[in-house]
């Protein structure tokens, strides 16, 4: 039984599982406080390298990653973390963090790794077996930096269905981060982590946008263009397949001004998509088939194929909540109030992006959404922006261990 460890420069080397586990156990031992300066520096240098490297110019996901990891941002995260610290306690990593990033979002594993690394964990990351050139090219400078400081973090791969390896590696993990949907989560739910360890599951999720038609109608041309760009970024960066990309757009205040302004906005979104077409003809057929199937089910009142990139359907009934087709398929749902938005939400829903809601509406929506299991409301344009608060978890809190060090006996006893 062995795994393939990434050595940099596109090359992998086989490592027997026993040797891997030995290496991981020894990397786990040294004490590392959370947010140590040298780890902040290392992450900052990695980000600076990505920002400088010409090959990533204009590659939006990598630019977003580099921006998120830059030294100033990481330092702010560290400061905020310290500001929340408990008296008579210190924080360290939980130990060994096992990362199982999704197959198709090339940059996510680095967010997952970076947070755990900053928190003070030793890490091992399972890369997809067919790791994209992007993944390997992103890793090369990072591996060089990690080697420089003698880090034991390991990026490796092995057949995804190898349950013996999955079980063995889960058994040494103090925390395991499983990204990639329900089937994968179910597979790992069977496999215990180290005693006292924890497993964070990021399951399949669906996301929505909530907009005020009245507020969109009031926008001037520049404002409309800006909003179209933001919505385009939310939808298009990962072909609308990221869990936080909206599929359904709930339209408030449509009674007063109608849907025309929303349709005009979506036409602009489509124009932006057509500037860099990413929908292949086969997916165009998938969207057309889905459109017709919705009409068969009497679930839509009208469908517009703006181009091969974008299809917009207006849902027929309030119980129709839209479908996750992806690749530029948007369902419009008219809602009379934020309560009518919230009534469609379930724990399967992840992000609500919003535009044009007043403070009171947003507050009401967030309370109703939270009661139904939704844990993220952010402005349109921020859907894909990674955040240490994710799926209702504070990842920094989840990936740290708080150690009580009391010098004096506290009042009371807890026997």
């Amino acid at each position, binding site marked *: 039984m062995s795994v393939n460890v990434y050595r940099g420069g596109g090359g992998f080397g086989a490592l027997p599982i026993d040797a891997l586990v030995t290496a991981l156990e020894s990397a786990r031992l040294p004490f590392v406080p959370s947010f140590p300066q040298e780890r902040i520096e290392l992450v900052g240098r990695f980000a600076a390298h990505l920002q400088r490297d010409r090959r990533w110019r204009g590659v939006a996901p990598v630019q977003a990653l580099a921006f998120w990891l830059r030294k100033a941002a990481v330092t702010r995260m560290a400061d905020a973390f310290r500001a929340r610290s408990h008296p008579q306690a210190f924080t360290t990593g939980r130990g060994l963090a096992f990362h199982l990033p999704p197959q198709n979002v090339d940059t*996510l594993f680095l967010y997952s790794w970076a947070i755990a690394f900053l928190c003070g964990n030793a890490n091992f990351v399972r890369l997809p077996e067919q790791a994209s050139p992007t993944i390997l090219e992103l890793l090369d400078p990072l591996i060089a930096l990690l080697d420089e400081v003698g880090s034991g973090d390991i990026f490796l791969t092995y057949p995804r269905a190898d349950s013996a390896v999955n079980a063995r590696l889960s058994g040494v993990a103090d925390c395991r981060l499983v990204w990639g*949907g329900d089937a994968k989560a179910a597979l790992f739910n069977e496999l215990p982590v180290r005693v006292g360890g924890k497993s964070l599951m990021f399951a399949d999720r669906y996301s929505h946008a909530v907009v005020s038609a009245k507020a969109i109608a009031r926008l001037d041309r520049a404002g409309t263009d800006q909003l179209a760009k933001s919505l385009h970024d939310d939808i298009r960066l990962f072909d609308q*397949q990221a*869990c936080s990309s909206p599929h359904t757009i709930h339209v408030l205040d449509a009674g007063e001004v109608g849907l025309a302004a929303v349709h005009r906005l979506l036409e602009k979104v489509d124009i932006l998509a057509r500037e860099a077409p990413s929908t292949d003809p*086969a*997916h165009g*057929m998938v969207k057309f088939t889905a459109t017709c*199937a919705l009409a068969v089910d009497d679930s839509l009142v009208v*469908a517009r194929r703006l*181009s091969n990139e974008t299809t917009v359907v207006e849902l027929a009934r309030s119980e129709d909540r839209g479908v996750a087709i992806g690749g530029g398929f948007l369902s419009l749902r008219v809602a009379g109030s934020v309560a009518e938005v919230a009534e469609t939400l379930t724990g399967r829903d992840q992000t609500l992006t919003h535009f044009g809601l007043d403070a009171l509406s947003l507050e009401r929506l967030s309370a109703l959404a939270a009661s139904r299991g939704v844990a993220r409301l952010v402005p349109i344009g921020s859907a894909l922006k990674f955040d240490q608060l994710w799926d209702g978890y504070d990842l920094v809190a989840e990936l740290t261990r708080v150690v009580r060090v009391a010098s004096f006996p506290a009042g009371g006893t807890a026997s």
Partner: protein
Amino acid sequence: MSFDTLVARPAFGVSQAVRERLMLPELRQLTRHHQAMCPPYARILERVWPGSGSFQSVEELPFLPVGLFKQADLRSSDESGLVLRSSGTTGQVRSSIFVDPENAQRQSRALVATMKAVLGEMRMPLLLIDTRTVISDPGQMTARGAGVLGMMKFGARPTFALDAALDPDLALIRQFVEANAGRPIMLFGFTFLVWTKLYESFRDGALDLSNAILIHSGGWKQLENRKVPNGVFREALRRRFGLNRIHNFYGMVEQIGSVFLEASDGYLYAPNFTDVIIRDPVSWEPLPPGRTGLIELVSLLPKSYPGHAILTEDLGEIVSIDSGTNGWLGKAMLIHGRLPKAELRGCSDVVAAA
């Protein structure tokens, strides 16, 4: 009725302009029929194709995506009938097509008219490169079974060349050929079976099929990796068996009965009561001859289900219009295979634990 007019003529004998003129009123009528009889179809027309009811040309006729027949049971008939299913590989969702007796009769008339163009009036002894078991369960009829059953009508004394395990009965094949030496015979089979079970079972010159007409269809299915180009296929069969008269046909269960038949030039011709439109894969605008795009199939046959205009997921091109090869008119087409499958990025792994 233009269907009756068109089906009565030699199947490839009507020029493109004339058939469009004859088909258009009947396509309008068919569209109205489906609208009245199939409420889901009416909703698609009204909500997905608003304003398209008054189409002025075959190209403007609203079409359905072929994949819809996998997701919805669409029928435009209150009669009882049978449901045909596409062959589909394991795990795939299969199309289901509802065929009532009237529709079955239209299909049958259309197929007779089409096949007459190569088989003539006489029924020849028929050797089927398939197994009898493919037609043994009428309740579970596959497209292959329906194809075999449909073709059996055109031959006499059908003989099945393969056993239940799809192994060829070589002695039976030789016996069939020897018994019919010197008179015309008909062979029918799916392309990959003809190649792997007939062609590969004999050496060059070991079997004389110079008196045979081969009709084949269905492509290569699970044997895509062993696929040979049509030109190679034709030449190999000619060399091995002296088999010169070979006619591939293209059709699909979603428009069963409408078959595009290969002429001696190797191209597939649309029979009179059908049309084919090649569309740009992105814009879906009609493309001129010589350009490759998505194949849209138009047919006057589908009456018990709204399948008279279907956008397929196959790629092809129009090679010529009214070429006159073998005296055949209408559009001649080349198929370029399936549209490559879509792959989306995303954070939900398609397969467990990727």
